């Protein structure tokens, strides 16, 4: 389990831990007593991933390019 609080995790970090948890729950390696805590952490990670995806959907990044066409940065696209 990562030490980073879930709310500060990147999408990739949260997904990685979620995949690990799903694998553990499916494999039966988890203790009965701890299974529920693991499931509940998985549910929080999933909610965080959902929120991150929603954020990304709402903030379509417009790529700014220099004169040669190379990407030099991104700029948030404001939904009107």
């Amino acid at each position, binding site marked *: 389990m990562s030490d980073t609080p879930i709310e500060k995790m990147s999408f990739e970090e949260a997904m990685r831990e979620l995949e690990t948890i799903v694998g553990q*729950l*499916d*494999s*039966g390696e988890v*203790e*009965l*007593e701890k299974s*529920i805590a693991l499931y509940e952490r998985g*549910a929080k990670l999933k909610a965080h991933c959902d929120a991150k995806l929603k954020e990304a959907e709402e903030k379509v990044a417009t790529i700014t390019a220099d004169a040669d066409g190379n990407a030099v940065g991104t700029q948030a696209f404001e939904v009107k």
Partner: protein
Amino acid sequence: MSTLLYMHEDCDDHVTPPGHPEQVARLPAIRSALAGFDHLDRREVSLGTADDVLRCHTEAYLASVKDAVPAEGWVSLDADTHLSPGSLTAAWRGVGGCVAAVDAVLSGEAKTAFVACRPPGHHAERATAMGFCLFGNVAIAAKHALDVHGLSRVAVVDFDVHHGNGTQDLLWDEPRTLFISSHQMPLYPGTGAPNERGAHDNVINLPLAPMTGGVEMRRIYRDEAIPALDDFAPELVLISAGFDAHRDDPLANLNWTDEDFAWVTGAICDVADAHAGGRVVSTLEGGYDLHALGTSAAAHVRVLMERGG
């Protein structure tokens, strides 16, 4: 005729480490919830025998459990499953209670029985203790009914919130049984997918999504579990009665209420009435909120008493 109740104080000597949810206080919670049930026929529980256990487990496994029992303190068989000095005797009472309940019900002493012993049984596999369980009590009861009483069709319905992997393992290749388990998924022990069907299509797994409450549970039982049970036409119905699908349970996320446990009990009794002369033997599995355990077990037993009339 009433409902038989099998409980024994030796089961309070199966002591789990501090903070363990499968705690000594569980049976006192049930005793006190059933205290006013004057018409229950309270029976002594004898010790089970090696013959009973060996119908489902290996000799090596039985010997290893016997050898592991500590003189004091605890020995852990896995991260969940611990033995205290009194655990083996408690487990023998669970086996003995289930076997005695089957004997009594099949000899016509009563139609229904509830065996409230601990440790529970439905996670114990042929050669593996796990999930708080040592011996597969309900599968042992099924084998006893088949091999000793000569029945040809025995059903086991397991509504504990965790999959009954042990019962599934013990009855996997037993075509004279039908095992139906409803359980939360994902959750411990990770097994119990619908494609696990037994060697003879004799296993039916009905996973329930987290937060499943009474409406959806009843739909699944009405549409799937009960018709399958009815088609099987059991001569005896056994129940693995875990009360941890209750909404207050700390180890799972289903949302059943006392009324839901009463409903599912009644639905199972309907099938027993149609095919098995009403004969139902129920045995305690999980249930870790002490108050909810008491009220839902009482709701379950009340229906067994009404139906056992």
